[in-house]
């Protein structure tokens, strides 16, 4: 049974024609409302993941549930299809189960609040916000157990329920949910923040309706959707080929010893329509790296990548969805069957963007960016401090941004919109640890005419015994370079004990016991390089040596010989460059085949290569 929407006022909205100026005004006002949602959330949330790092996503949709402002596209239609109940004025929906909304949120840590906005007895809009909770219970602190085989191991899972029913707050429901988490204080505040943020946007929508009239407002949202449709149609027809192109990349491993997992996407155009097909993607994993990819969300990613360059001020919306068809095979890594574990989906989510870049850029390599959207590296550290109080840190790290046609990739920056790092003084004040080193790791960005951004070396000294979880990827495969650019260096994690012994540890692990005085060197990947490194200005390479971003040895990759005084040795450079001329026209440089990477793995990474995946279940990708 799909959801039944109850409205006191049954008369449909009159579609009125909107002059372009009013339309732009409403677009602008909606954009402001969205900014206000973010501001409200950040000011009232408590978990560092949301309040310091910004791991949350707002949405304003029209009365049909189509996204008018937001980032990841609308999930409301999926929710409405799956929700067996009524939607009434004064209701507010709360959910966290990816299987109950067709993957609109992709793991149960994301809590989603949905507010239907009524006016004069009619549904005029939806506002929604979801944010990552630092802990929702389950078998490990942080609630993202890598070795989980089913979603039941990943903490509290909330089906769509009414947190408010006709204006009435369901206190007992909230109490029940908060009882499941290790951090009820954070979760309670963050839930309040999500609600406040939805309410702010609802108020703005109401004001816009009052200012312009309900019919004008609703018609304007329709016109905004159409504007996106028209723009995207033109773009697709002019820049997507009817020939099939495809691209494949990998998630390195599943944290329980198998990998890599292939994700493959093909693209072709039929008339005005783009068909994106994930056939050829590996079957789902027994562990938690599955990523339940919502088709609409992928359409949005695609659309944003297409249009970014042409009108950066445009407000993306769902209007162009009909122009895109997405096919994801059932039982694959990207559409796992219930009750597959999902909590470690961040790696495949990140990889989707590298794939999208590789797919779209193949025909026009001059606009192609290198790879670098590894994942969101997570660090969890929990235990009891010297006073016996429970502490629990969840932190998202960043790697290097890829080299791109417009210049170098920044060092240690976020590819995710709105994300920031946590000030180290804040970490040290509220958690028993000290950050002894925090730097852009020299040479980790791939060499190129435009260099890939360096990854970050962050050295945590733990000041209390505790337990650590790590989620990272791109430790086995490289972030690839393009157009002659070299691949970036891979991620690494090294545990240094008080006696100085160092052990390379896995990039996906739970329950790593650490002792007071241990240091964890958390190293993220560098972005791939763009263009022939021999075309980079030698003076710039030498300057980056003085800046600690490239070493003298690293300068060799650019064919530049740097003296001890960190200046260019012109003669030696000319000679070296002459001996290094590029001998291939390959667009991509993956740093070797999977087989070659496997062979060199132990020697290069200090870790054994993952075993080729075996599919234990019947679920097979539709090859």
């Amino acid at each position, binding site marked *: 049974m799909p959801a039944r929407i109850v409205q006191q006022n049954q008369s449909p909205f009159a579609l009125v024609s909107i*002059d*372009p*100026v009013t*339309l*732009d*005004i409403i677009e*602008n006002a909606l954009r402001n409302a969205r900014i206000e949602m973010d*501001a409200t959330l*950040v000011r*009232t949330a*408590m978990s560092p993941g949301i*309040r310091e790092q910004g791991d949350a996503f707002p949405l304003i949709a029209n009365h049909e549930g189509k996204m008018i402002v937001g980032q*990841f596209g609308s999930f409301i239609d999926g929710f409405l299809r799956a929700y067996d109940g009524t939607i009434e004025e004064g209701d507010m929906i709360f959910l966290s189960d990816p299987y109950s909304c067709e993957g609109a949120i992709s793991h149960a840590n994301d809590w989603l609040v949905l507010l239907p906005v009524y006016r004069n007895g009619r549904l005029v809009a939806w506002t929604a916000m979801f944010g990552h909770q630092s802990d929702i219970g389950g078998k490990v602190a942080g609630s993202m157990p890598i070795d989980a085989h089913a979603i039941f191991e990943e903490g509290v899972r909330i089906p769509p329920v009414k947190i408010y029913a006709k204006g009435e707050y369901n206190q007992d429901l909230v109490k029940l949910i908060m009882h499941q988490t290790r951090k009820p204080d*954070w979760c309670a*505040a963050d839930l*309040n923040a999500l*609600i*406040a943020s939805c309410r*702010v946007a609802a108020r703005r929508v109401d004001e816009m309706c009052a200012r312009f009239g309900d019919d004008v407002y609703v018609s304007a949202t329709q016109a905004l959707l159409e*504007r*996106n449709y*028209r*723009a995207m149609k*033109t773009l697709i027809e002019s820049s997507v080929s009817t020939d099939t192109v495809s691209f494949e990349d990998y998630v390195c491993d599943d944290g329980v010893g198998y990998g890599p997992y292939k994700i493959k996407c093909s693209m072709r155009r039929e008339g005005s329509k783009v068909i994106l097909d994930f056939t050829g993607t590996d079957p789902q994993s027994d562990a938690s790296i599955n990523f339940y990819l919502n088709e609409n969300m992928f359409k949005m990613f695609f659309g*944003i990548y297409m*249009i*970014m360059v*042409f*009108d*950066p*001020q*445009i407000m*993306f919306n769902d209007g162009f969805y009909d122009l895109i068809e997405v096919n994801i095979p059932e039982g694959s890594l990207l559409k796992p069957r219930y009750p597959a574990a999902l909590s470690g989906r961040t790696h495949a989510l990140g990889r989707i963007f590298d794939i999208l870049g590789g797919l779209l850029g193949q025909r026009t390599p001059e606009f192609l960016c290198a790879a670098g959207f590894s994942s969101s590296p997570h660090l969890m550290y929990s235990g009891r401090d010297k006073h016996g109080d429970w502490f629990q840190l969840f932190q998202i790290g960043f790697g290097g*941004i890829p080299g791109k046609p*417009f*210049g170098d990739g*920044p060092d*240690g*920056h*976020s*590819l995710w*919109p*709105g*994300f920031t*790092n946590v*000030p180290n*003084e804040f970490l*040290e004040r509220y958690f028993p640890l*000290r*950050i*002894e*080193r*925090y*730097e*852009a790791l020299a040479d980790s960005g791939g060499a190129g005419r435009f260099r890939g951004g360096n990854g*970050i070396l962050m050295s945590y000294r733990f000041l209390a015994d505790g337990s650590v979880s790590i989620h990272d990827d791109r430790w086995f495969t490289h972030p690839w370079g393009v157009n002659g650019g070299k691949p970036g260096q891979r991620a690494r994690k090294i545990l240094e004990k008080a006696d100085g012994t160092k052990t390379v540890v896995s990039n996906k692990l739970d329950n790593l016991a650490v002792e007071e005085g241990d240091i964890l060197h958390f190293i993220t990947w560098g972005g791939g390089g763009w263009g022939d490194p021999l075309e980079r200005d030698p003076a710039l390479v030498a*300057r980056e040596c003085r*800046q*600690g*971003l490239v070493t003298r040895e690293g300068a060799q990759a650019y064919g530049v010989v740097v003296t001890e005084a960190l200046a260019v040795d012109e003669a030696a450079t000319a000679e070296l460059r002459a001996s290094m001329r590029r001998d291939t026209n390959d667009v991509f440089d993956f740093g070797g085949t999977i087989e070659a990477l496997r062979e060199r793995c132990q020697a290069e990474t200090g870790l054994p290569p993952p075993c080729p995946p075996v599919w234990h279940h019947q679920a097979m990708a539709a090859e």
Partner: protein
Amino acid sequence: MSYRLGVDVGGTFTDLLVIDEVNGRTYRDKVPSTPHDPSEAVIAGARQICGHAGIAPNELALFLHGTTVATNAVLEHKIAKVGLIVTEGYRHILQIARSLVPGGLAAWIVWPKPEPMAPLEATIEAPERIGADGAVVRPLDEAGLRANIARLREEGVEAVTICLMNSYLNDTHERLVAGIVAEELPDIPVSLSADILPEMQEYERALTTVANSAVRPTVSRYVGNLERELHNWGSDAKLSLLRSDGGLMSAEKSRSAPVNLLMSGPAGGVAGAVWVARSAGTPNVLTLDMGGTSTDVALIENYQARLRRETSVGHLTVRASSLDVKTVGAGGGSIAAVPELTRALRVGPQSAGAVPGPAAYGRGGELPTVTDANVVLGYLPENLLGGSFKLDREASRRAVQTIADALGLSLMEAAAGIISIVNETMFGALRLVSVQQGYDPRDFALMAFGGAGPLHGNAMGALMQSWPVIIPPSPGILCAYGDATTRLRVDAQRSFNKLVTQTGDDDVDAVIDEVTAQVTAELAAEGVAPEDQELRIEIDVRYSGQAFEVPLESPRGSGIADLVRRFDEEHKRLFTFNLSAPQELVNVRVVAHGKAANVAAQTIERGNGDPSSAKLRDHSVWMEGAEREAVIYDRSKLRAGDVIPGPAVITEMDSTTLVLIGHVARVDDYANILITPEKN
């Protein structure tokens, strides 16, 4: 005899205002600005105005000055080469920054990352470490530091910043390092993060202190020139500069902490608006300062402008208090465009600037701007700037026609569309400072100034429902009024960081007393006797675990219980809910103000309500979809009590006021134009 002189340096003119502190009489003057060295015009203007007013240089007691010297140094990147000394392991602190890429998904593809303000090759590490409890984890290795400082010498740094981890808790290492730098690099000015911003968050502290170092030589040179020239002229007036937060600081302080001057310019306008608001008797005002490339808006509540804990200039955002002025890239020179793909009408943020400028200026600009739309609609008549400056109406029409063609609209509809869009952008900014902070704009008047403000003020009042719209006399000289009428200000704060369940009134009062003693002494050193000082005590409160505080005024003796009650109220007003978590008192801050100037606004002659003697000519404007009859008036000839029905255009030398149809303008005793809807 004692006079105070206010001077504001604008892009074109330097405005001056002298106030007789005894009887409040004022003298006004303006001289052309001298951008190559703004102090030249300042001194020339000071000599001129005193000459005209018959005031001897030694009769000037106070010389009060708003300056954009620091702002321009940042915007034009004419800054000092700063050497930065950080804790070992943190050399890339400015390079990594907060890891934020502004914009949405995929914005990283097009984002040009700005270079760090202190070059990485001139950033060195100090072998040392302070812990998060303030204890020394690793003592400073002096020899190691000296070896690293050699790098700064090679790089030829012109200023040095020291920012060490956790120095906000324990500054001994920063001071040790400063001592060594003084020996190794004598004569190089050194800024310590513990002095400039003793607060948690290493990146913001480092950046703010680097920004301080970066503008320090420029500001220091400028202030030195002014002091020397004042001295040569025979004046021993005390020189003070307007800070970003609207208070004044001594010349001496401004040379060591110039980061507080970054928003000195806009602060002058807001301070001036506060002064006009007092004369007009309107305690709650939204300000709209619209210039050529951008617009500044602010909110004044009960004659006080809101403050915020940040200052933004261009790409740079530092943690220094400033008046809560929001700036949007919408001004008279903002360019209108229609992207081919989306067919949307976009106005700004690109600006035609002064060169080539709007098409109407005839300096080679061909792209349609907001000014061109105003010209096409008849809102800006030809005799701008008192007739010395001709507008090319035909060029404006040609430019705006390109928009009309792209959108399939008539010329007039396109021009009106451009105005609506730019107004909407400013509307968004005004909502940010009002509605989003929980204020109802209907409780506020709207004051419009700056070159283009009076043209758009009426429309903004209508959008905000903020009445009356106030157009102050000579909107250009408002900043100088602000400079001359504001007060000396000193503030200091302590981190308190205690839950209300863990502390009591005595603890809080003890900290208040300590900070009060500090600011009182500091202001006394600037020449304000303690009995002339006005104190304001503020405590930042939040729920335990939140990241953002709500600052609340808390007079001595008012008690924690009352503070907590007011916090809950305010939190509910701002965010619609309260939490059961205990409240945390985060910071205790005391602000000490000096005496206000004794200055009343000048009154004008009263008329009989009929403005016809000020009428210049009949005119026609396009408004609400049709050509309308309008009248142009000369503002200088208007008298108090005159009533002007819209549509009308009122011109004066430095600006033009537009009165819309259905609205009426009244002139008050202080020559302010007050616009309200006709029906009121």
